[in-house]
């Protein structure tokens, strides 16, 4: 074992411990804001593991998309749903918790024995010398061109769908006042009709 191997082993151990600890914190902590920030730690540790696996582009994409977009979105959702509520305890909750823990531990044992027992066909080729980004780009525009374009369409659909789902249909201050007269019309924000070519403040004089 030379020096580079030892450094790799140590950094792998640190990153794996950080990621599993942060994931346990996400699942087990009672405050959901702590969970959201620990989720960022788990994502960053995963990006470090990707760097250990010679994948610079995907590590950067992980940090940008997960930490920069998804985690911020989750924190925004926590702030929007800022209702501190104490959940009513359900009877026999410990049965479900222990059953799930046993099932998860069994699944982990099954997966680890499978991983350790399978003879993997480890390739002995060296990694691509020019970095993986060039190879990924070639894949995107040759044999993965259709899924690449479909992913862009999917992102557009998710954008529009999220706007449609999260849009506030009923304005809360107009709801009680206008409910009597306009029972059959959809309540919407009143906007004054201005003819084209005139600015709205000038008609008063």
């Amino acid at each position, binding site marked *: 074992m030379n020096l580079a*191997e030892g450094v790799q*082993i140590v950094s*792998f151990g640190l990153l*794996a411990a950080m*990621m*599993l600890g942060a*994931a*346990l914190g996400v*699942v087990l902590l009672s405050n*959901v804001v702590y*969970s*959201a920030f620990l*989720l960022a730690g*788990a*994502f960053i540790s*995963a990006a470090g*593991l*990707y760097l250990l*696996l*010679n*994948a610079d*582009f*995907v590590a950067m*994409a*992980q940090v940008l*998309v*997960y930490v920069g977009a*998804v985690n911020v979105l*989750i924190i925004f*959702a926590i702030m*929007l*749903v800022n*209702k501190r*509520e104490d*959940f*009513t305890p*359900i009877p026999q909750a410990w049965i*479900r*918790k222990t059953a*799930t823990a046993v099932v*998860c531990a069994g699944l982990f044992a099954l*997966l*680890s024995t499978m*991983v*350790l027992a399978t003879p*993997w066909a*480890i*390739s002995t080729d*060296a990694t*691509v010398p020019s970095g993986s980004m060039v190879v*990924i780009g070639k*894949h995107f525009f040759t044999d*993965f061109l259709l899924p690449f374009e479909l992913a862009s369409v*999917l992102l557009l*659909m*998710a954008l529009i769908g*999220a*706007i449609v*789902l*999260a849009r506030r249909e009923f304005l809360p201050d107009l709801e009680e006042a206008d409910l009597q007269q306009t029972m059959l019309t959809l309540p919407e924000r009143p906007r004054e009709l201005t003819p084209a070519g005139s600015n709205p403040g000038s008609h008063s004089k």
Partner: protein
Amino acid sequence: MQLQYFLIVAAALFCIGIYGLINSRNAVRVLMSVELMLNAVNLNFMAFSDFLDPLDVKGQVFTVFVIAIAAAEAAIGLAIVLAIYRNRDTVDMEQFNLLKW
């Protein structure tokens, strides 16, 4: 460095994600658990791509697709959580039984 280390870490992360997915009462925490599971799958893809297919890194291409789709899933899921919170005035998963019976 061996392939098995990464696979075992990914399996542990996946099992933690399953535990959180089933036992969380808060709906936002359920979405966080789903993200953890997607990260475990990504780690599997990356490990296989580096150890079994280092010249033709198709696992990294798959990981980029999974990241893009996970971003879309997070946006849609949080929009659904917001819509349910507006209708039901709670984020307790035990009270979301609209489609159960």
